[in-house]
């Protein structure tokens, strides 16, 4: 009985659409992951509308707005980096990714500053000011920390991912003709941006 194996090349094929489709499906899982938290948010805000308004008053709209601008701009720079790579300008592409990562860093520093402020005001779960909050307001803070925390983790993951991609562009593994890796990194980053686009008004701008 012959057992000649088909060559590996017959099995592996270049499939950028497949890779992109896979990334989009993974993004759906992220949407549903955050979606669970949005379900909780929607429910508790509906049940405790005034308390959520109180909670929102503790957040600084200016910092939130600046962070929104940071993320939107970082989405721009990563989109531009794809354009650059498609045009063959690898140097510019890498530079734009670095700028994206810098914006991510700036966002995280703002976040760190915000959270430290809360901590100093005793507004962390378990601390005295938090313990004095009304029931609904406590929930608004629970959700604030959980949702911005989970989002922050994703910002960090996205930044690391983009760094790795920048490295591969520099090494010549991601090129003008094979750039789906960069596209996918960009897709992930845009999702992180979209999540913040919803988080910002829902936490900072509640009347």
């Amino acid at each position, binding site marked *: 009985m012959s057992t000649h*194996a088909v060559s590996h090349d017959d*099995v592996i094929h270049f499939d950028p659409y497949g890779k992109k489709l*896979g990334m989009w*499906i993974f993004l759906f899982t992220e949407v549903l992951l955050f979606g*669970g938290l949005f*379900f*909780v948010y929607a429910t508790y805000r509906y049940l405790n509308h005034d308390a959520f308004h109180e909670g929102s008053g503790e957040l600084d709209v200016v910092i939130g707005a600046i962070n929104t601008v940071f993320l939107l701009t970082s989405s721009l720079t990563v989109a531009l980096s794809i354009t650059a790579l498609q045009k063959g300008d690898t140097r510019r592409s890498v530079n734009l990714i670095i700028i994206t990562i810098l914006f991510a860093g700036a966002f995280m520093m703002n976040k760190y500053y915000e959270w430290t402020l809360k901590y100093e005001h005793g507004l962390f779960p*378990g601390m005295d000011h938090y313990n004095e909050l009304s029931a609904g307001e406590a929930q608004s803070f629970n959700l604030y920390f959980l949702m911005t925390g989970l989002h922050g983790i994703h910002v960090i993951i996205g930044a690391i991912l983009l760094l790795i991609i920048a490295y591969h562009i520099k090494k010549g593994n991601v090129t003008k003709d094979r750039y789906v890796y960069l596209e996918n990194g960009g897709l992930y980053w845009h999702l992180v941006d979209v999540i913040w686009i919803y988080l910002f008004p829902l936490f900072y701008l509640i009347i």
Partner: protein
Amino acid sequence: MEMAADTGWTFYAPYSVKTGTNVTVAVLAAFVLGFSSILTGVNFIVTIHQMRAPGMDWMKMPLFPWALYATAWIQVLATPVVGITLLMIVAERTLGIGLFDPALGGDPVLYQHLFWIYSHPAVYIMVLPAMGLISETLPVFVKKSIFGYKVIVYSSLAIAFIGYFVWGHHMFTSGMSGPARIIFSILTFLVSIPSAIKVFNWVSTLYKGSIDIKTPLLYALAFIFLFTIGGLTGLVVGALATDIHVHDTYFVVGHFHYVMFGGTGFAFFGAIHFYYPKIWGRMYNEKMANIAFTILFIGFNLVYFPMLVLGMMGMPRRYYDYLPEFTLPNQISTIGSWVLAIGLILMIANLIRGRKGPKTSSNPWGSVTLDWTHTQSPPTLYNFEKTPEIERGPYDYTNFEEYVNKHLQS
């Protein structure tokens, strides 16, 4: 002292938050497991989209990959919700973030909602591939195409889709609002329809077929019978009024064992026998397999049918003891479990022994699907010697002997 989690598999708040046992570890383990489900789902969707053989259009694809496709979408879209829910339990246990704590304005019933938003679709993750296996097995042993291929495709997708919106039927007695209960009950009845359609299609496939009674067919027939009983009892729990009586009783236990064990379990046993010669290139002992099947079938019904009766009589589930009036059915069930165990042991022992059984050709059942016609038994590395050409529909048995012999690998 640390002990194994004592919450039950549903991890309901507030107990799962308050108990001192190892809930955090257990829940994080489930979270990691969820990742495997999600990644598999992504993999299968992309593979089915991108890597079909040339000429295999969507409507030429066999029904097992179709079942996996529908399943993969559920895995991808439902699992993350329970993932984040479990993380919320961890957050509440470790960081004191009281999301489901009523004292902080939280709602324990919200936990139940989030949990079941995944856990109901999860049962469809379990049963859809099994249904796909039945669709795959039946045509081979009736030498006739599956009845209503397209309808089965659409029903599979419909089950996956509607299955998202019925989760509240696990919560009818939890204190949900009246309108919510009504809506969930209606949707639950709706989701039973595509499953019923499939059962009709399977039975119709048998009609005027050239029936070849082999072990896989026996399991497939058992599946149809047992799954139907499970499905019908599902209507009892799905209707609001009757559910009040049977919720949290042994009726529910009977119901889901009929669909999960009688359904999914038997389908998998049948598939193990069906694919056995493909995997090992050898055949198990047919007579022993059929004896094991018979004992298994009798044992199964002895175990689980009394539970339906017990539930109706009012025996609660998850109690360590029961009232004297429930004794007889419990005894029958216990004896049934011994019969079931014997059947299982016989089945498994026979399958293990079958590895030394007589060698088979690459296609002993005479199936016309690519997995049987175009690969050896067992398959070589990369399965197909060269990319197969699609000559016919997946269950086209016209002149099948000629087609099978033409492609016999060895």
